[in-house]
């Protein structure tokens, strides 16, 4: 398996305090990589990889091309999408509009979107997504009025609208009902199999991570603590000590 994403020695300092201190790893094509670690361990790393923050050092390669410092929108155009840990929806737009928006920039050119269809041909796809996440009765509601878990689901749904190759999910399970979580997991696995999409999942819900991921990376204090198959990681004493507890 080739690497979709190669990260070399990424560093991030905030005014002298090191939040991420030289992290290297790669994400292989078609895998689901879990990323865990105690609070404040430095999963901010992903904001550096995705262009939300400028890394203080290091390099990021996507498909072998250097993409360090690219803006989030440019990365998204290259097929990388993400969700957020804190709620990030468009509060005054309806749920459906949120989803259409999430996909529209992947349809045609900027000029063609000016003259083309108002929904960029995405209503159908948005409705499917709405159906899957059981938000039908809220499709025309402003997204800001959704409950926490519903917004979290909408955020995840948006990440899939552009047909991405690589998706980074930041705590997708937080606040989501366990039965919905099972569906979400199945959905991820299905997309992973059918479209060969790659996922990186930051998550504190161990059941979710362990049953979903093929590899798990553990971070602590801005460094990689361990990396391996879920069962290996789970038994690693250092990980238990720093993160899992008993």
């Amino acid at each position, binding site marked *: 398996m080739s690497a979709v994403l190669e990260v070399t020695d990424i560093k991030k300092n905030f005014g002298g305090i090191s939040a991420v201190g030289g992290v290297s790893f790669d994400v292989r094509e078609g895998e689901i990589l879990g990323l865990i670690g105690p609070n404040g361990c430095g999963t*901010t790393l992903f*904001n550096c990889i995705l262009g939300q*923050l400028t890394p203080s050092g290091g390099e990021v390669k996507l498909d072998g091309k250097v993409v360090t410092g690219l803006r989030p929108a440019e990365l998204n155009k290259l097929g990388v999408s993400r969700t957020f*840990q*804190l709620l990030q929806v468009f509060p005054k737009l309806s749920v459906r509009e949120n989803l259409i928006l999430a996909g529209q920039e992947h349809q045609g050119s900027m000029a063609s979107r000016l003259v083309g269809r108002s929904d960029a041909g995405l209503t159908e796809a948005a409705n499917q997504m709405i159906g899957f996440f059981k938000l039908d009765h809220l499709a025309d509601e402003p997204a800001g009025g959704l409950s926490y878990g519903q917004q979290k689901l909408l955020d995840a749904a948006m990440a899939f609208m552009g047909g991405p190759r690589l998706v980074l999910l930041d705590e997708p399970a937080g606040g989501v009902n366990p039965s919905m979580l099972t569906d979400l997991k199945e959905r991820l696995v299905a997309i992973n199999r059918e479209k060969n999409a790659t996922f990186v999942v930051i998550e504190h819900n161990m059941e979710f991570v362990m049953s979903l991921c093929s590899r798990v990376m553990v971070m602590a204090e801005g460094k990689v603590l361990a990396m391996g198959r879920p069962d290996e990681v789970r038994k690693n004493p250092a990980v238990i000590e720093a993160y899992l507890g008993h």
Partner: protein
Amino acid sequence: MSNLFDLLVAGLATGAIYALVAVGFTLLWQTSQTINFAQGEFVMLPAFLMLAAMHAGAPFWLAIILGILLSMLLLGLAFKMLLVDPMLRHGVLPLAIATMALAIGLKEAVKQFFSAEASPFPSIVPTGDVSILGHAVSLQSIGVLVLAILAVFGLTALLNRTSLGHQMQAAAQNPTVARIIGVPVERMILLTFLINAFLVALASLLITPIYLAKFTSGEVLGQAAFIAAIVGGFNQVRGAIAGGLLIGVLDNLAAAYVSTQYRAAVPMIFLIAVILFRPQGLLGRAEERTV
């Protein structure tokens, strides 16, 4: 050289005035996230209240007290209850627009009910100059500067060192949560506006002898104070001092060395530069957010 020194002194004197007006402006922002476009008019009005009291026969000292009390009633209590309360929840803009309308209303009211003419205003600081390093510096300017510095120190201490100050900030940054943990949000906001009203009344008392009492005198003052506040750092009360003095000096230097016709442009260009290269202002704190 001596000319330059004179310019600096003159600039600081004007700058102190801007600073004094700007203090209340940053205070409102920091403790209620309100932008008050009528701040200049807020400084203009108390002088007229005092003048009105004097016309009605009150001695100067009584007029001052009445003026301050009335200001706190009108510009503090009434302003907060009538305009701020209904609009605060709806973000900065509606309230900002409402204060623009308020500015028009205040100006017109003074013009209509008092006079369109400028009036002289007695000074509580003795007029006259003291000599500093051989240059004449007016006592009035020193009074203004001292008050501005006192206001800044006092407010900074209040906001950053006392629990009351923290509560005021909390009420501005996240009113819902503040309410949940028991901060009396309403009272904090009211307090903010009362302090501001008190400050503008004092400012009015000190500034009007220099600027003359006129219904339009808030326009220039308000705008200069905004710019001073932004340049100094909007989210820090002490930014007002730095910004005010800097803008005052810059304005004078521009008039002397650039061109009188483009004098007003220089602080503006400086403002743009500051915002672009140091958006939080010279003394401001960067607003940082995690993603």
